[in-house]
């Protein structure tokens, strides 16, 4: 579920609007096979020259470049070819497989994190330490799994629109003095699509009315400051949401 379809608090619209990095180049740079490298035999041999952005200069203009041949054409015993001098974060260089696993874990974590921050601004990414590349991969894979579990828990406890949120109506504000038309519309949506968290079409209240559930909840929205919507909630999910919020948002 993508929370952003209910809200657009940052005005970005497109779900990919904030994706600034290519999966193949985590630091935003892209591979240019014609980018010159410092020739072998120097202390910085093999390293890119002229940075990663913009077009590469003509080879003849760069006095450091002795040849326009790619390093693969060089056959000098003992020469150092262009390669990543070290892995990320000072760790040993990664293999292709390790890079792929790390990228996948980071993407999973970022996707879950993006949804979580919209539902629970108090949520924080789990911390961890690692001293090897495999350790780093394991940390991010574990963090991604934890974030996904946390996200499922928030959804289950009514923090944010649930999986059965199909229709909703705008909230006039955080107040709970609802008008007759709002209650009628909420019941219509609830009896048709069910409770937005569990899908139950019977609200199990004494009056037969569905709860009008503010999303984001008022407690959360004090931080998020978003426009709120109203969704139908059954009694059980409303109770669980209330207890969960009381535990989670205990004021310090």
């Amino acid at each position, binding site marked *: 579920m993508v929370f952003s379809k209910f809200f657009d608090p940052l005005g970005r619209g497109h779900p990919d609007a904030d994706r600034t990095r290519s999966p193949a180049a985590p630091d935003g740079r892209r591979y240019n096979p014609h980018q010159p490298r410092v020739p072998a035999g120097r202390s910085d041999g093999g390293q890119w020259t002229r940075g990663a952005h913009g077009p590469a200069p003509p080879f003849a203009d760069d006095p450091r470049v002795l040849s326009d041949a790619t390093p693969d054409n060089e056959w000098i015993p003992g020469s150092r070819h262009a390669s990543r001098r070290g892995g990320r974060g000072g760790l040993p260089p990664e293999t292709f497989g390790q890079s792929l696993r790390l990228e996948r874990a980071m993407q999973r974590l970022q996707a879950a994190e993006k949804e979580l921050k919209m539902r629970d601004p108090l949520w924080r990414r789990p911390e961890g330490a690692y001293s090897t590349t495999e350790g780093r991969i394991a940390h991010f894979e574990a963090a991604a799994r934890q974030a996904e579990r946390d996200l499922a828990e928030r959804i289950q406890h009514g923090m944010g629109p649930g999986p059965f949120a199909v229709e909703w109506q705008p909230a006039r504000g955080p107040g709970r003095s609802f008008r007759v038309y709002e209650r009628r519309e909420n019941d219509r949506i609830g009896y048709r699509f069910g409770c937005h968290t569990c899908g139950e079409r019977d609200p199990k209240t*004494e*009056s037969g009315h569905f*709860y009008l559930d503010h999303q984001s909840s008022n407690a959360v929205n004090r931080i998020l400051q978003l426009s709120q919507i109203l969704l139908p909630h059954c009694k059980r999910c*409303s109770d669980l949401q209330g207890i969960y*919020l*009381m*535990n989670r948002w*205990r004021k310090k």
Partner: protein
Amino acid sequence: MRKSAIISPPNSLIAVLEGKDAEIPIGKERDQSFVSTPSCVIVDVLMSQDGPTKITLDDASAFAKRGKPAWTGYLETPKGHVGVWTIEWDEVLSMDVPTKLTRIRIWTNRPREPDEVYIGVGE
């Protein structure tokens, strides 16, 4: 001294506890009107959108004529205080108590979604 408030609490729940250090229950079954821990009891009241609920806090002896309470138990009150809170941590009613373990009895005017709740403190 008797204290009363008429409120429509969020999520139609009120909590009787001492303060923010209390242990809050982690779940509630569908048909449970009360759920508790050693330091907190949560009470299900009238659906807030159907109307307000009158909550009264007083010594238990003031409610003796109401018959058998709907809930009875003990709450840890190490600081000598009992309060009625909403789930948004707004304290609605409070009173001081002389004991660190306080007997609480709760009467309601009906078993489900009561709109009158009487919280009796002490023996």
